[in-house]
């Protein structure tokens, strides 16, 4: 199988606690965005229970915001579900990138890894993959569960206090997500060698150009998906 990677001395021990520790830098992001979602949810007339269910079952920041927006706008169920699907389809690519490193674990555990994959845990995991060419299951669980429980708690707390802070928008909390993407991108680039870095920078230029053009023809989340697929292909061809 594709997981037949060499385990060398650089591989850190596979521990749940280490996974939790490696999650800590992203927690500020989860807390900010989850809190902001709770506030938006409660001020959009969602109940605490509904905020809890969304964060525990859908567990996807941008999709939860879009869900709330569409629901408030009175969009039909089918539109909300299809939009959520498109918004989260990028996770397919993320899971596909991480999964080959975890095939030695049981199907059930793999379902667990996949169910809790988010943009941020993906970012942390691929940074580790870049450094060590290896991922451990207990480490993944520690990372995933820490992120998951923090997210639910942040969403619910935001919902509980949301009615008292009407202007949460001014706090800029929604930008935490973008800031995290920027940091994860830089971390991934920092681990690449000089020659690889030049290649990556050219590809990033392609991403911008292609994303810009695609944005005229399709919703943003689809543009992200297609730009990624096209530029990763350019990456393989120009390697």
């Amino acid at each position, binding site marked *: 199988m594709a997981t037949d990677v060499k385990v060398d001395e650089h591989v850190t021990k596979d521990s749940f606690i280490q996974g939790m520790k490696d999650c800590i830098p992203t927690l500020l992001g989860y807390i900010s965005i989850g809190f902001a979602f709770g506030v938006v949810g409660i001020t959009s007339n969602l109940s605490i229970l509904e905020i809890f269910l969304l964060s525990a079952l859908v567990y996807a920041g941008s999709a939860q915001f879009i869900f709330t927006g569409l629901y408030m706008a009175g969009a039909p169920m089918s539109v909300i579900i299809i939009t959520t*699907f498109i918004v989260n389809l990028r996770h397919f690519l993320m899971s596909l990138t991480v999964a*080959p490193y975890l095939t030695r674990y049981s199907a059930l555990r793999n379902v667990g890894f996949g169910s809790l994959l988010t943009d941020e845990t993906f970012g942390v995991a691929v940074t580790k993959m870049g450094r060590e060419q290896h991922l451990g299951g207990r480490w993944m669980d520690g990372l995933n569960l820490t992120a998951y429980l923090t997210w639910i708690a942040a969403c619910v707390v935001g919902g509980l206090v949301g009615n008292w802070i009407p202007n949460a928008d001014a706090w800029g909390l929604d930008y935490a997500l973008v800031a995290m993407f920027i940091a994860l991108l830089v971390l991934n680039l920092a681990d690449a060698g000089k020659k690889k870095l030049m290649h990556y920078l050219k590809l990033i230029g392609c991403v911008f150009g292609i994303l810009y053009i695609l944005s005229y023809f399709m919703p943003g989340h689809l543009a992200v998906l297609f730009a990624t697929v096209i530029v*990763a292909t350019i990456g393989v061809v120009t390697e």
Partner: protein
Amino acid sequence: MMTTLSMVLLILGCAFVTWAPRVIPFILVRNIELPNVVLRWLQFIPVCILSALVFQSLLNTEGKFVTLNWESTIAFMPTLLVAIWTKSLSKTVVVGVLTVAVLRNFF
């Protein structure tokens, strides 16, 4: 009223369409060996998808032309510099959020 049946069904529907794309690849790669070229292709996904997500946040697609969203673009610069300088997720998030808060409150 805490919730309604139709709301619970709606949330379950959204949960399912979010869950399936996350889990299917994990089941897939256990059963099929991915060709070498696909594995090479996957190596480019992290950088491509993360940069696409960043650039998407910079674009404003509301108008007739796709333009840069000035608020995100201005916030992008200090955030990127802190990310390069500190290589720290938390510091980058703090600086990004503070920059946007300042922009929204003082400009």
